[in-house]
């Protein structure tokens, strides 16, 4: 509780607090026991509501999103946050004419979170007979076949060129560089203004998830698992070295904070455990092992209920991952993973949206007693917090962790 009442003001004191928080966060992630349970909330559109911005403002103007994240980090005095959890910048999306987003203030109301649109199965961004093209040359396939389908302005190979086609690459490349550089500045500002740690560095998705999310679509990929399973497996293998490369190249050079793995369609009911074992897990596991060989931890943002998959995840080397609990059974997560890995999350989002502060506090105490008794636990909600999270409940989560999470 003392953290909240005394805010450091000198640069030296803020840096001291940063180092204290970094040690706390990293110690917990390595399955150690820090001074207390770290608080690392994945706050997305909540930050907008708290700071008086609309969803349109934070998804379109990333400086406002950065500003909202910094203000929340300072006001709530959290140990670590993501620089911008409203990650998809809609300005870039529209600059390069991506088709698969519903943008706040355009396709959806200005106060709604942006949405991803999956096309009908017959209009999937990758056709079922294109696996060999993808397998033979993933990067070439993405540039030559996939990008012209997902971006209105990008002209397919062989078609007459246009100014809009040229501008799409020019604007897209420069805008992306600008945005990603902004994360570096944001990390420095979080450190220097409030002593807050940037929680993640780098991005990873499972090969199977990427094929489901952005190429074949979930329904199409389900059919492919039966109609052409060897092609699905070969495509996952072909994507694997690229996804590893992107994850490693974006990882923390100091090897403190993990790469974020955003897990979508590997759990029940999307895949049965045998399907997970055959299609989803082998290539993802290899990427995790290769990252760990480089000293890079991976944070499993395990969206949904992964209880049936825990025995597979337990195969990974000790401390190689942090497992984030959304709807996974916390007791089973502790049983299968708790001795080897740090766990995080578990406070239900509906409780944060509709519950009372005393119920939130009770939930946090229960989670700390169950998952954090010997260290290796980080407090957070189950899933990213959008604008339905109530500030008083998030404050209760923060205060309860400081009250009950001291070792």
């Amino acid at each position, binding site marked *: 509780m003392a953290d909240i009442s005394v805010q450091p003001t000198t640069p030296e004191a803020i840096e001291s607090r940063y180092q204290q928080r970094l040690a706390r966060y990293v110690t917990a992630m390595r399955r150690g026991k820090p001074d207390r349970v770290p608080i690392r909330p994945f706050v997305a559109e909540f930050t907008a509501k708290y700071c008086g911005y609309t969803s349109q403002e934070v998804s379109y103007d990333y400086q406002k999103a950065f500003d909202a994240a910094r203000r929340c980090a300072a006001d709530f005095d959290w140990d670590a946050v993501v620089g911008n959890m409203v990650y998809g910048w809609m300005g870039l999306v529209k600059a390069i004419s*991506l088709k698969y987003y519903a943008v706040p203030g355009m396709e959806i109301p200005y106060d709604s979170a942006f949405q991803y649109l999956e096309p009908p199965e017959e209009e999937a961004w990758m056709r079922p007979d294109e696996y060999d093209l993808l397998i033979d040359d*993933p990067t070439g396939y993405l540039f030559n076949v996939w990008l012209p389908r997902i971006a209105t302005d990008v002209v397919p190979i062989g078609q007459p060129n246009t100014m809009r086609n040229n501008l799409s690459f020019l604007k897209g490349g420069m805008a992306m560089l600008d945005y990603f550089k902004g994360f570096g500045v944001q990390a420095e500002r979080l450190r220097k203004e409030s002593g807050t740690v940037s929680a993640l560095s780098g*991005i990873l998705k499972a090969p199977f998830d990427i094929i489901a999310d952005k190429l074949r679509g979930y329904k199409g990929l389900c059919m492919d698992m039966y109609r052409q399973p060897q092609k699905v497996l070969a495509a996952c293998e072909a994507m694997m070295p*690229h996804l590893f490369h*992107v994850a490693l190249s974006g990882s923390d050079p100091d090897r403190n904070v993990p790469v974020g793995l955003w897990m979508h369609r590997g759990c029940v009911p999307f895949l049965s455990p045998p399907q997970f074992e055959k299609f989803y897990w082998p290539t993802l596991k290899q990427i995790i092992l290769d990252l760990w060989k480089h000293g890079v931890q991976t944070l499993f943002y395990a969206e949904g209920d992964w209880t049936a998959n825990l025995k597979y995840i337990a195969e990974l080397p000790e401390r190689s991952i942090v497992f984030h609990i959304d709807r996974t059974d916390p007791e089973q997560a502790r049983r299968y993973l708790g001795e080897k890995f740090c766990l995080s999350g578990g406070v239900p989002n509906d409780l944060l949206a509709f519950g009372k502060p005393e119920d939130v506090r009770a939930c946090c105490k229960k989670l700390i007693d169950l998952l954090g008794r010997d260290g290796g636990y980080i407090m957070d909600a189950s899933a990213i917090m959008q604008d339905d999270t109530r500030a008083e409940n998030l404050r209760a989560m923060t205060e309860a962790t400081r009250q009950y999470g001291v070792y």
Partner: protein
Amino acid sequence: MNEPKKPPKRPPGTCIPWDEKVKELPPITGDKELVKRVWEEIDGMAYVYIWQILLSF
């Protein structure tokens, strides 16, 4: 899956491999490694572009 793996046409981090590009260039009389390094660094940015569109947007 059991067939021997072929080397990838475009290795990770690469859009136009240096070995392909160097054939188009006039003979490099100066520091060839410098030209290669800078080519690969900028080429790598194009790689980041397409893979980040896939992963992040």
